[in-house]
């Protein structure tokens, strides 16, 4: 339609301001991360060398390039601390995402089965905690899980335990915190696909004699896979780089990569190594993203 075309042109102009902003404050910063990851650590302000100085002209630029090194990346590969941190991050993220899927799916499924009017209410109820500060929600769990916290008091009062159990500073506490914080991110995409699903398909399967678990496993679940993919991705990637939750709830014996990066940056002031660690993390996270995109494309093609 011709009026659509007319509209398209000014709409394209609308892109200019946000485009420039994102290039300046999202894309360009990565160039700096990359550059500093290739620099040497120095005891100075800023704590890295060589420092880019455009005013010094071409010669300075050339010598700066000559001084670049991949030592930081070599260090990451040879130092157990980093290797363990990456492995731990991925393990935690896989476990937590699986838990989220297990817990989030029945909730999303229940939401999708509600009468239409109640679905909107349920959705608001799921979103509201997401609006409520992330840090506050972690803090709420510290109140509950600490040594003389509510959980221990209840357990003691019910005589289920004879002395306080250590909940805080354990991996269990960390998983509770992660599941609690990311649950809305898992529920919403799942709910979106489940609510759109044609109920006639499930009815047909059950009319043809499938018991409920078969209806679910052979019809509902496969059809909800796009939502599962989106939810898993939406949770998995940020969890890998998680810093606050493991820092406040988990013990300090084994760190995730987000914490290691933070420590390297703020405590050790080793910016080049922190930058290199960030680049590696970014590359690790790109893999699931690309995989997801490819799966989605294939699904679209199959749909046609």
């Amino acid at each position, binding site marked *: 339609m011709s009026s659509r075309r007319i509209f398209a042109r000014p709409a394209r102009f609308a892109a200019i301001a946000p485009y420039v*902003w994102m290039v300046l404050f999202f894309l360009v910063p990565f160039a700096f991360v990359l550059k500093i990851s290739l620099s040497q650590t120095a005891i100075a302000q800023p704590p890295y060398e060589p420092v880019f100085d455009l005013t010094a002209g071409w010669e300075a630029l050339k010598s700066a390039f000559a001084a670049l090194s991949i030592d930081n990346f070599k260090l990451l590969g040879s130092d157990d601390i980093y290797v363990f941190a990456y492995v731990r991050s991925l393990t935690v993220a896989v476990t937590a995402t699986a838990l989220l899927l297990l817990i989030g799916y029945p909730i999303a499924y229940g939401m999708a089965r509600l009468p239409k009017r109640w679905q909107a209410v349920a959705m608001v109820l799921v979103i509201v905690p997401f609006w409520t500060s992330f*840090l506050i929600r972690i803090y709420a769990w510290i109140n509950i899980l600490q040594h003389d916290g509510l959980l221990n008091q209840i357990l003691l009062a019910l005589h289920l335990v004879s002395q306080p159990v250590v909940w805080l500073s354990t991996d269990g506490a960390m998983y509770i915190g992660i599941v609690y914080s990311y649950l809305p991110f898992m529920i919403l995409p799942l709910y979106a696909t489940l609510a759109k699903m044609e109920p006639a398909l499930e*009815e047909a399967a059950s009319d043809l004699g499938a018991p409920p678990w078969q209806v679910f496993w052979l019809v509902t679940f496969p059809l909800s896979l796009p939502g599962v993919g989106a939810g898993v991705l939406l949770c998995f990637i940020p969890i890998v780089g998680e810093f606050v939750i493991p820092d406040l709830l988990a013990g300090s014996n084994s760190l995730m990569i987000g914490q290691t990066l933070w420590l390297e940056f703020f405590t050790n002031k080793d910016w080049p190594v922190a930058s290199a660690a960030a680049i590696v993390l970014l590359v690790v996270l790109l893999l699931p993203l690309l995989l997801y995109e490819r799966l989605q494309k294939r699904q679209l093609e199959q749909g046609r």
Partner: protein
Amino acid sequence: MRKVSRLSRFNVASLALGLAFLYLPILILVIYSFNASRLVTVWGGWSLRWYREFFNDRAMIEAAWMSLRVAVASATIATLLGTLAAVALSRGERFRGRTLFSGMLYAPLVMPEVITGLSLLLLFVALNAERGFWTVTIAHTTLTMCFVAVVVQSRLGSLDRSLEEAAMDLGCNPVRAFVSVTLPLIAPAIVAGWMLAFTLSLDDLVIASFTTGPGSATLPIRIYSEVRLGVKPEINAICTLVIGLIAVVIVIASLASKLSSSQGESAAPL
């Protein structure tokens, strides 16, 4: 045989348990903020003691003020930029660099905050920018405009385009058609986007820690450093105030969207 699509007992139970899991911890925190006892876990009767303590804590008040200013400024810029981005993506058809553009807009949604914060800090250091209010505001704008863009874009996508086309057939130029037809229709989404940006900014700890300078800590930064030292009942009170503020924002925004949708209905017969 309509057994499957009906709400089963299992559905109800999982919903109830899920919601209880989401709400109980927050509820407990709010109740304990009115606890008179110094020990967080021993109930000593109702009291506003910790709220008084907070209002006498200069550093906390300053941090709260800083957070509010950053949240208002960054949410406003982010809503402006995010709405423009959404319009470009949903109405601009194809344009050069569109893939990169949408990629940049979606990436911060999933990117670990540690990486976003680190990269922005390195940029600010390289530019020799003084870190404080503006650097945090810029960082928050970058993050939250992506959320605004997603919210507004989904609303634009569900909009009946024939309304815009009708306006243009009646002689409006595209900009005029957008301002007088499309904009009022997507206003609820824009309000929702602003709210989301506001609360995300108010909430952010990691990016703010990287991009702020000495002496300009935001509220989450202060809360975080207190929490690391151990649980203090004052924190319960601050958290409850923040939850209350966010609840007020949500109520105002939902009223606004209700108002605009009822206006739309009453305008329709005319």
